[in-house]
């Protein structure tokens, strides 16, 4: 049995029947099988019925998102390989979890990402160039979370879950829950982060303050090299029960199910029903980052097994079989992805390096006389080279 199979706990016992993880299987909410078969509805562990009702145009839109974020991600990986980015954390394999949850957000909802949520960022309508400054080393984020309803990437594992919790407490304190126009918050993190104190503290806080928050855990099976078994002995979604809120595991390679469970959880949160945990069961098809070498810690057959569950292939098969999209559509999406990635590449190469003295900017909102002095001295030092041979 493959490592990380959803039906297996860390001790190798079967937690639930493995075959036909479909409607009625509380271990994995799925609305689109790896073969591209549509499942009408699926039942969560608490009896919630999940379904989606998309128009053909919306189905095609989701497919377009999946292809675009994968292509842009591949472009960023290539840019790193060519020395144009210092690092890249690829989302390869996790497109459905990110597009599904990202499209489930309403305009007023706030997202707190890790450093891998490029797909969510894309779904927020944000220019994909925005996070690339961080990976190129020309800035450290530099965007306004409140402008984009999408916080800066957080590198310290799990730290953002507390920020999301506090923000969600603020939403409740502002009286912005209860009803359709209520605000909800989503916190992204991975399976490794579930071992962090901050994440567990966030669970406690969100629970006791009934914060309008969705904890969205992309369980991609690995924390760099360490498999899920090093983080947990129980399925992650079940941890929610101990903290006093619902948890659900969704097929993270199924964009429809990811959308359905996230939309449901967000709406519960905005309606004042408090937090919940979604475990999006997926797989990191690539390396942790471009600095990583996954061949040292996982076997090819495992990767191949997950290749067969590819989120884009199943969506394409579904669109094709249902005649929702034709060859022209698929070709046009590929062409759009190609064009956008070329455009992205051009702009990355043109990102200007910051001026050295800019490192002194924005350390404090109200400034510091000590820093002003250091900046002045350093500027003087730099100027002393002007006109010299060096």
């Amino acid at each position: 049995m493959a490592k990380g199979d959803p039906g297996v706990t860390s001790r190798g016992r079967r937690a639930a029947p493995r075959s036909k993880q479909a409607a009625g299987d509380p271990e994995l909410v799925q609305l689109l099988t790896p073969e591209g078969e549509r499942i009408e509805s699926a039942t969560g562990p608490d009896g919630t019925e999940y379904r989606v009702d998309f128009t053909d145009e919306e189905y095609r839109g989701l497919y377009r998102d999946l292809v675009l974020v994968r292509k842009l991600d591949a472009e960023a990986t290539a840019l790193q390989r060519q020395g144009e980015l210092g690092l890249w954390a690829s989302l390869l394999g996790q497109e459905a979890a990110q597009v599904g949850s990202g499209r489930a957000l309403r305009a007023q909802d706030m997202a707190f990402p890790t450093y891998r949520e490029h797909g969510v960022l894309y779904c927020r309508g944000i220019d994909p160039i925005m996070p690339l400054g961080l990976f190129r080393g020309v800035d450290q984020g530099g965007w306004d979370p409140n402008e984009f309803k999408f916080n800066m990437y957080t590198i310290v594992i799990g730290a953002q879950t507390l920020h999301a919790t506090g923000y969600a407490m603020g939403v409740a304190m502002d009286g912005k829950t209860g009803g359709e126009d209520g605000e909800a918050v989503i916190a992204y993190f991975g399976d490794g982060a579930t071992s962090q104190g901050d994440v567990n503290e966030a669970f406690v806080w969100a629970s006791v303050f009934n914060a309008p928050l969705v904890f969205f855990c992309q369980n991609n099976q690995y924390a760099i090299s360490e498999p899920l078994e090093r983080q947990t002995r129980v399925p992650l979604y079940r941890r929610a029960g101990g903290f006093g809120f619902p948890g659900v595991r969704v097929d993270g390679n199924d964009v429809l199910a990811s959308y359905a469970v996230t939309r449901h959880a967000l709406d519960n949160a905005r309606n004042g029903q408090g937090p919940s945990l979604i475990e999006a069961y997926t797989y990191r098809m690539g390396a942790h980052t471009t600095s990583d070498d996954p061949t040292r810690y996982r076997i090819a057959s495992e990767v191949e097994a997950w290749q067969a569950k590819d989120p884009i292939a199943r969506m394409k098969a579904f669109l094709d079989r249902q005649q929702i999209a034709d060859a022209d559509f698929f070709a046009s999406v590929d062409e759009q992805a190609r064009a956008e990635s070329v455009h992205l590449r051009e702009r990355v190469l043109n990102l200007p390096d910051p001026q050295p003295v800019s490192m002194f900017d924005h350390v404090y909102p109200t400034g510091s006389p000590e820093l002003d002095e250091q900046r002045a001295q350093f500027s003087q030092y730099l100027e002393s080279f002007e006109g010299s041979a060096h």
Partner: protein
Amino acid sequence: MATETLTLGKALTAGLRRALENDPKVVIMGEDVGKLGGVFRITDGLQKDFGDQRVIDTPLAESGIIGTAVGLAIRGYRPICEIQFDGFVYPAYDQIVSQVAKMHYRSQGKVRIPMVIRIPYGGGIGAVEHHSESPEAYFAHTAGLKVVTCANPQDAYVMIQQAIASDDPIVFLEPKRRYWEKGPVELDAPLADAYPLHSARVARAGTDATVLAYGPMVRTALDAATAAAEDGRELEVIDLRTLSPLDLTAAYESVRRTGRCVVVHEAPGNLGLGSEIAARITEECFYSLESPVLRVTGFDTPYPASRVEEEYLPDLDRVLDAVDRTFGW
């Protein structure tokens, strides 16, 4: 103008109350800050008057206090976080150093974290371990944080309000052994006219040697100056008040006159504030110095058992001994 005699602790309470009154976005959060009013009663009565949405009893998790306060700040709130004791701030250290301190920088000025982290600090109250530490150097060493400490009730009342009004994240260190010391407090003075937060102040003028102190050691330095005066030696005592950024303008001016300088703090000497201060004074006042800058500090041990803390902590005699040594150089 209403001037009342208050303890330093009650002056802080009055300052917090005024901040809560003046800005609906100000919230207080921490362990036991609600009904109990905090273990030192600094938030006494505030939850009763402002409600449990403004004065929030939190779960017992320091990283959670600071981390959720970051989120509240992003949402537009101005959180005042109480860390119950100095030795309990370390679980929150990552959030303070990696998140609070860097948010404004990383966002190129687009995210402000107007947070005040109140920490009762220092020894002298006979406490068990982890309740008497002086962690100021950790925070002063971190770019993006400002660090201040008050030494008397008037400053406590004003500085806490200034810190709350500031858009900078500020670690506000409260000298817990001085919580019960009384002094006059002008309660109605407009904040805008107050002495600036990030400025040191001469606490006692003198001509023969300069003693620099902050927080709980200002009282000790002033007592030493009183004793020295009886021996005919006039010490100038400067209350540094702001530890990051340091304001040594008054210190430089003083040392250029006196030629002698002693820095006093409770924290261990190795890589403490005194080291930085001594280096800067040496750079700025080299030709005026009659002796090296000397430090009187806690020792480079863990904070000891309370039965020997009086020996660990700098006191009047150790300050005077150091002053004597500057004259014997």
